[in-house]
């Protein structure tokens, strides 16, 4: 199957990976943040000083106890951080660098669906799967209509890796496993057959077009849209591969390749490391040192999480972007600027006509206004959805209108590009997240 995405926009930013130079870094400690897994209500299973192995449960979900988050390294718990009202922030684990693994009991034949789901949930990998609607962590009881897997990331500065035959073998194993969980199709979206060879048992989808073509929500909408009452599982090929690895080796693969990108990185590069690796280890000596503030983002510049040097790599554990913060510069009448270095898709800024890479900082560059310009969301949201009306329904908490306008088909990340380009500076992602949570609270 082939789909071609027309609407969207590739932002050309400075600091992309040019050569495939890879470095390996062993973090001294790693951390797991339950808030990365939206919908997971964390209860902690360990305390400071406990020894853990790779795959030892760290958290379990309050409502679905078999849904767990597990340790990516072997070592010792060194911190359990809580925030307001004792909400769990993170658990930090010192890495003893031995990777001693808890063995997972994998049955030889895959017939018993319930026990398969339990294995997946307890391994911690089910939390890496998103469920649509609501864009929350998957649960064993979901019974998904189809499973959608994306093999590429189209977001700014993201690195799309090619997979080899060993990866394909592992993925095929996981696809075979998934066929026991869903009676529907398993779709794998890729850029081309060179990027990811055909995987037996899965429907391969070649996707062309600009960002957000790599967002699973966009792919679902263009392949087989979600209807009210249906569940979809969405995951990346990295997760698929990890599931395959677990099935093959009865233990977890917690290695990950991170793209270290952005204009404030000395040399953008790939780093092989461990899930949840500490930023101090990853970034030490790799950032531009000058007097200006910088923003470290785990993830891409549209949907990532702001962290600091004391922080850790956050889910989905594949991308770190470092950009200028911008809160220490004074710009005289910036709104009237004709500087070609201003990032904008508007032809009123000359930068659009130079083949130049932009170096935007984190400033909002304008005050929040009511929606004035029309059609902006439609231009960059390649789904059959009236984005502006959905946002209005969401802001007024009108569940009926949101259902009718397709709230079940979207996730916050699908609105990220519109939020970035919007001249009214509206927080679309936060609006969508809040209304998804609101509906879920009302209906589930």
């Amino acid at each position, binding site marked *: 199957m082939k789909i071609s995405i027309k609407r969207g926009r590739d932002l050309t930013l400075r600091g992309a990976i040019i050569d495939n130079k890879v470095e390996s870094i062993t973090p001294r400690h790693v951390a797991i943040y339950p808030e990365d897994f939206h919908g997971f209500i964390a209860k902690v299973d360990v305390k400071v000083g406990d020894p853990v192995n790779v795959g030892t449960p760290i958290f379990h979900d309050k409502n679905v106890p078999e849904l767990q988050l597990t340790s990516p390294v072997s070592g010792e718990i060194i911190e359990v951080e809580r925030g307001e009202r004792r909400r769990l922030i993170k658990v930090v684990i010192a890495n003893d660098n031995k990777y001693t693994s808890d063995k997972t009991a994998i049955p030889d034949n895959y017939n018993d669906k319930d026990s398969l789901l339990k294995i997946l949930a307890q391994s911690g990998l089910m939390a890496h799967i998103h469920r649509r609607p609501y864009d929350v962590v998957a649960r064993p009881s979901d019974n998904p209509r189809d499973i959608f897997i994306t093999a590429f990331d189209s977001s700014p500065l993201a690195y799309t890796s090619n997979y080899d035959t060993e990866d394909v073998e592992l993925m095929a194993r996981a696809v075979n496993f998934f066929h026991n969980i869903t009676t529907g199709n398993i779709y794998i979206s890729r850029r081309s057959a060179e990027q990811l060879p055909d995987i037996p048992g899965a429907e391969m989808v070649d996707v062309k077009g600009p960002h957000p073509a790599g967002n699973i929500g966009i792919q679902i909408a263009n392949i087989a849209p979600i209807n009210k009452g249906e569940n979809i599982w969405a995951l990346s090929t990295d997760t698929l591969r990890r599931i395959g690895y677990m099935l093959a080796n009865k233990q977890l693969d917690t290695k990950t390749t991170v793209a270290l990108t952005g204009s404030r990185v000395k040399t953008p590069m790939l780093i092989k490391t461990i899930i949840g690796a500490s930023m101090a280890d990853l970034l030490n000596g790799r950032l531009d040192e000058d007097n200006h503030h910088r923003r470290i983002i785990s993830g891409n510049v549209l949907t990532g999480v*702001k962290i600091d040097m004391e922080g850790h790599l956050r889910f989905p554990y594949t991308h770190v972007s470092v950009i200028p913060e911008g809160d220490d510069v004074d710009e005289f009448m910036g709104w009237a600027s004709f500087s070609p270095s201003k990032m904008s898709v508007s032809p009123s800024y000359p930068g659009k006509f130079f083949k130049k890479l932009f170096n935007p900082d984190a400033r909002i560059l304008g005050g929040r206004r009511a929606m004035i310009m029309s059609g902006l969301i439609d231009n960059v949201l390649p789904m059959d959805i009236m984005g502006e009306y959905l946002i209005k329904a969401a802001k007024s908490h009108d569940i009926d209108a949101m259902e009718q306008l397709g709230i079940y088909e979207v996730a916050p990340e699908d609105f990220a590009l519109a939020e970035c380009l919007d001249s009214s500076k509206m927080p679309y992602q936060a609006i969508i997240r809040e209304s998804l949570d609101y509906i879920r609270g009302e209906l589930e």
Partner: protein
Amino acid sequence: MKSLKRLLDRARPAFGPKGRFHAFHSIFEGIDTFLFTPRDTAPGHLSTHIHDAMDSKRTMTIVIVALLPCLLFGMYNTGYQHWLAAGETIFPFWSLLWYGFLSILPTIVVTYAVGLGIEFFVAQYRHEEIQEGFLVTGLLIPMIIPVSTPLWMVAVATAFSVIFAKEVFGGTGYNIFNPALVARAFLFFSYPSQMSGDAVFVATNQPFGFGPAVADGFTCATPLGQIATSTSDTLSVVGIDSHAISSWDVFIGLIPGSFGETSCLCILIGAAILLFTRIASWRIILSATIGSVGTAYLIHAFANTTYPATMLNPIDQLTLGGLAFAIIFMATDPVTSCRTNTGKWIFGFLVGTIAIIIRTFNNGYPEGAMLAVLLMNAFAPLIDYCVVRANINRRQHRLKLAGSDKS
């Protein structure tokens, strides 16, 4: 720049919640954000970290820049018409421009003072930032009314439109009707004798004592006014000095009319700016042009003397009066026009069609563009509702299909 920034930084505490001038904090913030890009950065979670440099200030400024050719030409033309009315034969360029500038300046000062005054007050009351929308409205109002409209009427109309057409709905972005057109409609229906007829479209006074004197009781109808009252089989439109007005004059805009609306050439320059920067919707402009020219052709095919405007060449229909200005600067207002792409096609087409129908079949009111846009402003939400409904029905149909698959 640094000293200016220091000055602002020093003044900031006085406008803070406990400061002496807290009552003027929205004014201070307005000036501060105008001069220096705010340092506010994106929140770290559930938000994009980078933002496009386009903002409301720039959007509105571009519209103002697009209006400037019309404004400058309006100044020149006001002077030119005045010189003609005074019977002069030499037209000194700078004097004409200066005369026009002096004529329009009080009106612009009044609209901005009244409108921005209300906006500042409302922003203060609502604890919001000052919104830029009125910068455009405040310039549009002087351009679409006769140059000699008394200032107190301008003030009343501006206050009415800002309060009742905009702020009661929630401010810029929430209004249903285009505020500039509401101001004009208010003037038209409240003071018809000052807003239409033969005596108002040419400046006859001497602002600040400048310019040649014009005889008392001077009148000259606009071309559309002449056409509406024409009774002969052949249309003849004449200027102030009784020479026939050619299509070229109409295109350039050296004819009597509302201050900024006469020159098609300058309107096209403005249109080019708005289309290039993608601020105006090309869909609305194109469909409104198609709608008006199409309707004009249709009625021209059935021309008769009962409705003299039917005898007008369809292209002249487009260039005469305020239609072109309304299509480019009024119908494309993103807030009050349709917001869906399909809706924009329908909206624009109907604006063009209705403008020509009103202008042609209502002899009492020779210009229909204002009413057409206001009428379609009222219908825009309905058109959008139908377009959105179609999307909803598609989704519900899909749901039914999915349901029948399972059963």
